[in-house]
């Protein structure tokens, strides 16, 4: 059969015209219409005939021995179907992301305020609440281990995990530690090379992810004895991996489907209600729904590690960094969660995007009786960036240099080496990003003649009419890694199917990627359109029927699962072309798919996909692995530990009411290199959202913990930025391709959350002259009334 050219087609240029809804475009979200109609099914919207409501009894004490648990009164309550304790767990009693040190239900002791002890299934949430109250627990309350001093002296203050039950790689109350030495380290001889030395202590409070959709889901017992769970999570397969042993089931009998996710930001990396709902469904034989109330949500997920940090930098009079020394102590709370990875990030990224010839670092995560801490957007890097960027401002001030110039003078770029010895082998435009935010026009100065109090610090509270308001400007830049590090192979799987439906070629993309709001589903469809030259793409619901997509975290999903979709689509494309070669004997080497056809560069359009495919579907699955990394050496911190680096620079303009200590961020500018913006609208949305969470950490957000007890588990008392607190956020996107990454893209989500906090604090410092070594900055820190 001879090659045929379809007559009457548009010219090749037109045929090969990329779809405007392919990569680089900003097509609308496939779930957008459902979401604005209120028809998108979030995990808390799940409903089933005869379903029960699950609820947990949580410890009011941060540290106590459980002497007895009496569930008899709870069981007597009409409408109660089950009350379970750890005694009822059919399988392993422990789970955990990296270290299985957390009991699914407390066993004989509680280690943090809010730890789940028993679970109830009842016919109404109020019945469940009343049943929980009827469970009688006898506690022997112990003094909680909460300070660094207490944690580091376990012989005196005790162990959070007794040595004989210790599962982590650390010792005592240290969950994980990482040291790093680079160049000559930091010695007296090295110190002597610096003209000016700046040393300070810094502190970061405990931030909450505060996603709006509470932890929730529906567990349905299946006829085969397994469980079908519909849940909001960040990683279906790692949930299943942790759940199955506890439920006493093989993994294939634990089937997870992603329900609608109302934000995540790291807070859904760990399990919350998954095991509890499944245990109750197993026991009762009925579907069980659990929906956390907001207060329970604060207890039900891990938070950003609070940090205490000591930084020392030496600089020459002309602004060259000579050495940097740091110690970062992260409070990991009761259970390990992601603490080891957070420590790894803090140690390896904790000296920022700067060339520093001599470096020393120690980062540790403690076990304590404070709330467990784990993943939150930018983890490990966020805490350190506040410290090293504050140091840059102090160094600049000490030698009389412009703070942006000092940063640019020491900024790393492609080809430079991280303190870990890893050479940065793709663009690192740190100095340029700083220049870009500096060159952006400034907002107009405060106009005292035409004031709108709503735009001032205090806003609607009408606390100032312009008196006592001082403006400040600050700059910062940050570095974050993309993907899982230190030897972890966090591969992603994608299945792509191409077939004719209704006379049109349609691609279907099936992955287990958790769409948490970031727009991965939009990008997957864009990739399929670009690679397969079709317009119609459907997204299969994410579930465990397909291989793992890894976690929606570490800025990795477009890189990793997007990369898998690209690989699978390319494989489908090749299969289609091979099919045509076999049937028609095409000999050209320039075949591709475009405009719904097989197209040859030289011969033009060969055949519509509709004709070539007929009734046959091509359905292929591919895995995408990033290049291998290695663990950091425990003592020196050396090693090719990270997959990719990402950078963002910011400028903040703030107005401060110096009498009341109130801050209004007037503008927050961002410049970020994204390699390639697969969806510019989503990229900008990620950067603006990331900046706003950084704003929250700078001036508002902290979980207040006193003696291990959480004092503000509500949106009344834990404040996140409102639209009135949030300024315009102009964004400058740079696209310098990374040759190692699919399409040259660079992970986007976290870098702005790393970099934007310090510039806000810098701006407040400029306005007030205060040291402000702790975030969030509170009014009393500014007024000095604390």
């Amino acid at each position, binding site marked *: 059969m001879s090659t045929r050219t379809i007559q009457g087609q548009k010219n090749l240029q037109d045929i090969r015209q990329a779809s405007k809804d392919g990569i680089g475009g900003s097509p609308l979200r496939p779930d957008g219409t459902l*979401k604005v109609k209120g028809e998108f099914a979030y995990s808390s919207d799940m409903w089933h005939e005869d379903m029960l409501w699950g609820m947990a009894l949580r410890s009011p004490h941060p540290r106590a021995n459980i002497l007895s648990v009496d569930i008899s009164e709870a069981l007597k309550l009409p409408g109660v179907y089950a009350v379970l304790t750890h005694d009822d767990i059919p399988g392993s009693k422990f789970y955990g992301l990296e270290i299985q040190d957390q009991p699914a239900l407390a066993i004989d002791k509680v280690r943090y305020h809010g730890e789940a002890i028993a679970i109830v299934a009842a016919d109404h949430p109020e019945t469940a609440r009343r049943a929980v109250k009827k469970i009688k627990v006898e506690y022997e309350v112990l003094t909680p281990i909460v300070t660094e001093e207490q944690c580091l002296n376990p012989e005196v203050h005790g162990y959070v995990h007794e040595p004989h039950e210790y599962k982590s790689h650390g010792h005592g109350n240290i969950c994980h530690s990482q040291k790093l030495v680079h160049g000559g380290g930091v010695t007296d001889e090295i110190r002597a090379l610096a003209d000016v030395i700046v040393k300070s202590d810094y502190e970061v409070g405990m931030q909450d992810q505060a996603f709006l*959709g509470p932890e929730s889901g529906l567990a349905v017992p299946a006829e085969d004895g397994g469980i079908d769970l519909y849940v909001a999570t960040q990683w279906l397969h790692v949930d299943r991996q942790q759940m199955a042993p506890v439920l006493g089931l093989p993994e294939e009998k634990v089937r997870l489907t992603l329900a609608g996710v109302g934000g995540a930001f790291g807070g859904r990396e760990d399990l919350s209600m998954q095991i509890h709902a499944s245990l109750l469904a197993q026991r009762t034989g009925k579907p069980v729904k659990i929906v956390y109330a907001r207060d329970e949500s604060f207890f039900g997920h891990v938070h950003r590690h609070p940090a205490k940090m000591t930084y020392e930098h030496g600089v020459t009079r002309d602004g060259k960094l000579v050495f940097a020394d740091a110690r970062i102590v992260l409070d990991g709370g009761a259970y390990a969660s992601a603490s080891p990875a957070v420590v790894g990030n803090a140690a390896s990224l904790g000296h920022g995007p700067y060339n520093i010839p001599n470096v020393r670092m120690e980062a540790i995560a403690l076990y304590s009786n404070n709330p467990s801490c784990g993943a939150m957007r930018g983890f490990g890097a966020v805490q350190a960036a506040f410290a090293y960027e504050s140091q840059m401002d102090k160094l600049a001030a000490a030698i009389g240099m412009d703070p942006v110039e000092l940063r640019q003078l020491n900024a790393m770029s492609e080809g430079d080496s991280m303190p870990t010895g890893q050479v940065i082998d793709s663009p690192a435009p740190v100095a340029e990003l700083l220049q870009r935010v500096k060159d952006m026009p400034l907002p107009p100065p405060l106009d005292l003649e035409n004031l709108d109090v709503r735009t001032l610090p205090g806003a609607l509270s009408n606390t100032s009419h312009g008196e006592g308001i001082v403006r400040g400007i600050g700059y910062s830049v940050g570095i974050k890694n993309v993907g899982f590090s230190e030897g972890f192979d966090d591969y992603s799987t994608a299945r792509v199917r191409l077939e004719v439906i209704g006379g049109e070629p349609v691609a279907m993309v099936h992955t287990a990627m958790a769409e948490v709001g970031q727009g991965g589903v939009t990008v997957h469809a864009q990739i399929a359109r670009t690679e397969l030259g079709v317009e119609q793409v459907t997204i299969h619901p994410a579930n465990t029927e397909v291989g793992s997509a890894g976690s929606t975290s570490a800025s990795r999903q477009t890189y990793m699962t997007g990369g898998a979709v690209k690989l699978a689509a390319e494989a489908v494309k090749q299969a289609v072309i091979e099919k045509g070669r076999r049937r028609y004997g095409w000999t050209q080497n320039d075949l591709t798919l475009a405009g719904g056809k097989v197209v040859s560069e030289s011969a033009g359009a060969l055949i519509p996909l509709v004709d070539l495919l007929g009734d046959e579907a091509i359905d292929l699955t591919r895995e995408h692995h990033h290049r291998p990394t290695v663990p950091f050496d425990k003592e020196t911190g050396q090693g090719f530990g990270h997959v990719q680096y990402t950078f963002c620079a910011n400028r903040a303009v703030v107005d401060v009411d110096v009498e009341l200590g109130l801050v209004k961020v007037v503008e927050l500018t961002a410049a970020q290199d994204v390699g390639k913006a697969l969806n510019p609208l989503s990229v900008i*949305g990620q950067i603006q959202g990331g900046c706003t969470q950084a704003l929250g950490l700078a001036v508002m957000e902290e979980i207040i913990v006193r003696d291990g007890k959480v004092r503000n588990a509500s949106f009344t008392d834990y404040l996140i930025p409102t639209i009135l607190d949030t300024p315009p956020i102009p964004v400058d996107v740079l696209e310098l391709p990374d040759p190692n990454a699919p399409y040259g893209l660079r992970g986007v989500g976290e870098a702005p959350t790393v970099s934007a906090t310090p510039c806000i604090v810098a701006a407040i410092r400029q306005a007030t002259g205060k040291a402000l070594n702790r975030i969030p900055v509170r009014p009393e820190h500014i007024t000095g009334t604390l």
Partner: protein
Amino acid sequence: MRVTFTANGKPVEADDVWEGESLLYVLRERVGLPGSKNACEQGECGSCTVYLDGTPVCSCLVAAGQVQGREVRTVEGLADENGELGLVQQAFVDAGAVQCGFCTPGLLVQTDALLDNDAQPSDTDIREALSGNLCRCTGYEKIMDAVRLASARKCAKAASE
């Protein structure tokens, strides 16, 4: 108790309602309207905002019994009978104001109410009007864009009619 009211123009009836249930719970769990969202259930986040007799309220703060005989309009009632998106809904989709979308239903109702009251609000007016609606994903910039877009379309539509 039994509660009867009008939801999006249709009469609805909920039986065996416990006295402590909120309007939000009845909408979500008893009458099949889960569009209004349960982010804080204490009146801080605005994601459960609905019209009650034409006034936007946090449905989590309204006791179910209070809506007896009254008219409720939820996010599900913003599109027309044919499912055609309302002007504010379309603007949120077009502007990229929807990420996770959990705040969206409340913001849509609140924005709808704002633009009914003032079709051309200033940026500061928008920020004031929406300051009771928390969003954790977007940084609000695209929400500002969406409200401006809806405002422009509404004005253009009014001018052409």
